[in-house]
């Protein structure tokens, strides 16, 4: 019976999935159930693409603090995915390769097993954490080198996975994670978006309801700065001299669906991506009344010291959100969680801490093979900043190389796809799989032991 392999990267924010044997790139959709107050409809997972009005979207996420706790939400999303509505997937003839959070709790892990086998009836499956999936890629390519011939994968690397819920630092040795070296920083995309929402709501418009829109704004405008204090000083200047100031045009529903950054030159080679939806309320009201309010307002009335708004071009109905120092102070939290009062070290320090807890002999190799993956790694300037900061605090005798793929978001998925398809990994892959028959005989403990000890 021919089996296909379905590779699913089950993240807290989005699911990346695709069949391993197809050449198509992975597809992605949001891993949650959203309800739109405006349209009075509920969208499960990818149904969100059919939504027209993204204001006041209310989320229900299956993940909580990075672990899958809300199974009924997740199940609804998985129903759509696995029951063939999105991709032609027949569970009984499919191998499932699914990702789980790092350091997953054992009781949650058994629920994964239960659901996969008993509920959907997959033929066989394996689960691994996303950084482990990423390790199957050709990592030396990130540094412009080729893989040493004869070797399937690098001996060791440090994977920095900065995603929605957290940021993890995991050193790997020969494909297995070095457990004592795993570190977690509780800053992720969700915290950054919430923080940005709060700042914007205090300084400009009240966007406390508009999670989706603020997420778009974050992705469109934010970047990681390399010269933090210098750029902060620049932001204090008048708009003519202030190159960092950016305007994000907020959409309304009648004319436009999506927002964009006005004046593309400041946006560091990012095209004006059409993103964003949402409405603005002038007051901090709970009710979501529509465009009528927004038209009445001037561009900014609650603005504070740094946003002198004389550079507004004449626009009839546009509402503009000004992004000044928020553009780079928000991602700064990844590097200094103490900025908002969190008592944790940032990414570069955590990397040093993680590597220092590993054996002395391999530390040099670990410093030379740092890989960044995850959604937050897409921020412009991220790699350069990590490399600079790490070089500053790492011991001077070691070489520091930080690599990032063109698409850090899907790097883990690509690694898993290589695992599932390439011949070099075929035996490893087979050893990891647990078939349904075996599960029904022995139970969850088999899954636990096999997934941990394999490779």
């Amino acid at each position, binding site marked *: 019976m021919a089996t296909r392999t379905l590779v699913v990267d089950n993240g807290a924010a989005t699911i990346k999935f695709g069949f391993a044997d197809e050449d198509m790139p992975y597809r992605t959709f949001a891993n949650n159930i959203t309800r739109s107050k405006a349209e009075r409809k509920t969208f499960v997972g990818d149904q969100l693409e059919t939504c027209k009005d993204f204001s006041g979207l*209310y989320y*229900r996420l299956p993940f*909580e603090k990075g672990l899958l*706790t809300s199974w009924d939400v997740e199940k609804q999303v998985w129903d759509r995915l696995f029951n063939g509505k999105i991709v032609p997937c027949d569970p009984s003839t499919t191998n499932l390769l699914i990702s789980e959070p790092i350091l997953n*709790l054992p009781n949650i892990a058994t629920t994964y097993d239960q659901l996969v086998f008993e509920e959907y009836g997959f033929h066989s499956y394996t689960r691994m954490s996303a950084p482990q999936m990423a390790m199957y890629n050709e990592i030396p390519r990130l540094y412009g080198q080729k893989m040493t011939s004869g070797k399937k994968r690098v001996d060791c690397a440090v994977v920095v996975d900065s995603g929605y819920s957290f940021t993890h630092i995991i050193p790997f040795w020969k494909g297995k994670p070095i457990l004592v070296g795993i570190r*977690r920083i509780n800053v992720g995309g969700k915290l950054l978006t*919430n923080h940005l929402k709060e700042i914007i709501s205090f300084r400009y418009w009240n966007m406390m309801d508009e999670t989706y829109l603020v997420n778009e704004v974050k992705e469109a405008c934010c970047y990681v700065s390399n010269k933090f204090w210098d750029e902060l000083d620049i*932001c204090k200047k008048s708009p003519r001299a202030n190159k960092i100031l950016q305007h994000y045009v907020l959409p309304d529903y009648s004319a436009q669906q999506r927002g964009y950054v006005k004046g593309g030159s400041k946006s560091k080679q990012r095209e004006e991506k059409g993103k964003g939806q949402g409405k603005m309320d002038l007051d901090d009201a709970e009710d979501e009344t529509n465009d009528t309010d927004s038209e009445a307002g001037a561009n900014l009335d609650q603005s504070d010291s740094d946003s002198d708004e004389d550079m507004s071009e004449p626009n009839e109905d546009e509402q503009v959100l000004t992004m000044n120092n928020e553009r780079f102070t928000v991602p700064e939290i990844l590097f200094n969680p103490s900025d908002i*009062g969190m008592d944790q070290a940032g990414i570069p320090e955590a990397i040093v801490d993680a590597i220092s807890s590993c054996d002395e002999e391999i530390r040099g190799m670990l410093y030379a093979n740092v890989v960044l993956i995850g959604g937050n790694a897409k921020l412009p300037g991220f790699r350069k900043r990590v490399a600079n900061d790490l070089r500053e605090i790492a011991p001077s005798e070691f070489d520091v190389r930080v690599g990032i793929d063109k698409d850090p978001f899907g790097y883990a998925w690509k690694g898993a796809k290589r695992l599932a398809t390439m011949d070099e990994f075929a035996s490893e892959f087979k050893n990891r799989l647990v078939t349904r028959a075996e599960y029904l005989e022995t139970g969850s403990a088999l899954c636990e032991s096999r997934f941990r000890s394999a490779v």
Partner: protein
Amino acid sequence: MSRKPERGAKAAPKVLDPEARRRQLRHHLDSLERDNFVALNEYEAIIATAAAAATAQGPISLTHTNLDPLGLLPPLSPAVGSIVGGVVGTVGPGAVHSPNSPGVSSGGRYKKNQQSNIGTGGANSNSSNSGSNFSQTAIPTSALGHRKPVLPRKPLNQLLDESRMMSQTFYQEQQQQHVVLNYLTANMGPSRYPQRNFCSVCGWKGVYRCNRCGMRYCDLRCQKTHNDTRCMKFTI
């Protein structure tokens, strides 16, 4: 602690002492972890009474009664407690609601629901209520036909507690390991470098601190804005 108010309930203390400021900070950080960072002041009363009446114990099946037949109310967002130590009750009696600080309203609501949902062990019992809200208005629940699985719906803290016990027994078996690494211990420790302070109003360097509440500001203009809008506007 702070000076006791002379009359009645709500005379706010003049100055916040460090303990209160720490509590405020902790509450703020917790609120940043929430999924839906939304002020739900006006729903609080409705939902609290409804929650007391709703069925929310133990494992639930996918179809059960819901509170809100029309699906108009947004479900309660579960206030996620602090993860370290699994302590859930760090949020004190947050009673004052202000539009600028929606996190506080969650604190107030959180406390009320703790009182009203005794059976489920507190923290995320609201999620089961909200589950009910969704399942009515949304898509048909089980696309699978014959069996409706009973999914264990436990709050995260309960799961954490259970697994901690599991890992402890594992440790006793495995006595070679010196460090038991799991979800809780992988947390990164504090930084070596001192904290950088930013103005809470504009985001520049926050050199000065408000006398009363301890939030930072950078110059006189920001101080004025702070006093007008945010100073002592909410207490925990």
